[in-house]
């Protein structure tokens, strides 16, 4: 095909799209929403799985000791735990050390903790704890039960990543199912809307198509502008959806960076930064959008363009 013909066909496709403003906008809107929801589901899913994998690396279990536990009893308990199976490391964190750790974590806002500093400060509300890391995550819960049994009344609370990670994994599964379900439904809707748009264009241009047929234009040549139209609609929707998803993601990142959202810090610092996500999103969205545009076109064109 000549370059001038190619230019002509692309121009015709765009011309059709503009002539059909309303339907083109509708197709772009539906396809962009489909992509937006896909993008939101994918981003949620990847961030949750990043957090889950972070949690499993942090295979740290903290056993909080009740305030009535004497310091030497706690140390002895720590030594006992160190000798147990599957325990890689074990350390004792006193009440005072707990306050220091918290001060470090709060940074500039740590002044509020001044009143609780110092050894044996009766005001200190933070408990002492035994911090344990395990060698084999698979046996995490068995190890946790064994330590709890050994500690008895001394341990008033156990914080193990296993609970949170199982919740997150089921959340991730739910997000995946719902996300893909929505994507499938909206994908079909997008194909129908796009093929309808193309059908309208075919109808509007039936006279020209008829003339093209009897002056000897090839079928490929007649179809080409419709593909250009469908694929352009898909590409625009892809770019638009990338913009929307990235905008929302940026907003969420901004919100999570605020001091009031510090409690989510563990999660926030495991989120993918903006710079990592926009390019793959753009590529995937444009590819998927133009694919849907092409499929939408070919489903309508065969029936309505008997050439």
């Amino acid at each position, binding site marked *: 095909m000549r370059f001038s013909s190619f230019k002509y066909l692309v121009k015709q496709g765009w011309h059709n799209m503009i002539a059909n403003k309303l339907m083109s906008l509708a197709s772009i809107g539906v396809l962009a929403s489909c992509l937006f929801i896909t993008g939101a589901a994918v981003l949620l899913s990847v961030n949750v799985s990043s957090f889950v994998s972070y949690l499993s690396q942090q295979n740290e279990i903290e056993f909080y000791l009740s305030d009535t536990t004497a310091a030497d009893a706690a140390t002895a308990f720590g030594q006992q735990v160190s000798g147990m199976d599957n325990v890689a490391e074990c350390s004792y964190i006193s009440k005072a050390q707990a306050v220091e750790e918290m001060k470090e974590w709060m940074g500039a806002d740590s002044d509020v903790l001044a009143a609780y500093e110092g050894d044996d400060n009766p005001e200190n509300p933070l408990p002492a704890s035994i911090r344990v890391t395990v060698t084999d995550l698979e046996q995490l819960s068995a190890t946790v039960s064994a330590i709890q049994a050994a500690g008895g009344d001394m341990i008033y609370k156990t914080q193990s990543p296993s609970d949170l990670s199982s919740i997150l994994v089921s959340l991730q599964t739910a997000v995946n199912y719902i996300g893909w379900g929505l994507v499938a439904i909206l994908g079909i809707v997008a194909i129908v809307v796009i093929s309808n748009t193309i059908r309208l264009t075919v109808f509007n241009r039936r006279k020209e198509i008829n*003339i093209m047929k009897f002056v000897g*234009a090839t079928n490929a040549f*007649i179809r080409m502008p419709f593909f250009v139209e469908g694929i352009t609609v898909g590409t625009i929707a892809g770019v638009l959806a990338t913009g929307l998803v990235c905008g929302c993601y940026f907003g969420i990142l901004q919100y999570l960076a605020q001091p009031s959202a510090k409690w989510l810090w563990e999660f926030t610092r495991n989120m993918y930064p903006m710079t990592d996500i926009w390019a793959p999103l753009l590529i995937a969205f444009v590819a998927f959008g133009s694919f849907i545009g092409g499929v939408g076109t070919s489903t309508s064109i065969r029936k309505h363009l008997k050439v």
Partner: protein
Amino acid sequence: MIRFEGVTKVYEGQSGSKDVLALHDVNLEIQKGEFVFVIGHSGAGKSTFLKLMLREEVATEGEVYVNDRELTTMRERDVPYLRRSLGVVFQDFRLIPTMTAYENVAFAMRVTNISDRDIKRRVPYVLNLVGLSGKAHSFPNELSGGEQQRIALARALVHSPAIIIADEPTGNIDPELSVEIMELLQAINSVGTTVVVVTHEHELAQRFNKRTITIDHGELISDVPPKPMHPVRQAAPQRPVMPQTQTQAMPRQQPQQRGRAIRQPQGMTQPQTRAPQQRRSDNGGYMEGGK
């Protein structure tokens, strides 16, 4: 150039309705450089005849040859190339109203993958051929019916076709202007292009002394070669001749001529084909018109 061999076309009836026999065992041959009228009233089968030549429809039986290509077995993807070797003109002109005369003609070249340079060279040339150089930038609605048909003719000529097929070319045009179109077709014919004019107007065929093929009820009922005349007198008839009803009724009185008259070279006459001509002359046919 164009050859029909035992062509039958049946349109299959949609769920329940009966099949329609549009053409039945049609045999004919049109030689290169001929000017032929195909006449018949509505429903006679002339549209089917046209569609078979353009490969819009495929014959149910028999073979159709156009430009040495057999159309019945032609692959779908070869059809566009067949059509580039034909120029077609329709009763309703089929111009694109949003394009100027120039653009309408250029469109036919653009969509067949021809370079801009060739388009720029060819379009003014064909517009000049049809005498519309001055109206290149007018839109179809600014032009008369005759002018619009000339643009359609220019469009049909861009690919330098070997055959021009005109479907009721003067149907939507004032009688005075339709002579112009017919003269233009004759001029195109005079440089060697085969011209086939499909029409229901018997008068038109009679005014121009050309080979005339009549189709009725799907059958080829007469094939009359042009009457030898002095070339100067061939065109320019004075007034319409012979009522239509008579013309239509006439060939049925001569059923024995069918089949024999076809496929005979132009100019050769046989007794069977001479009979209807004489009748027409008796009724005040073209003889009178030529005077």
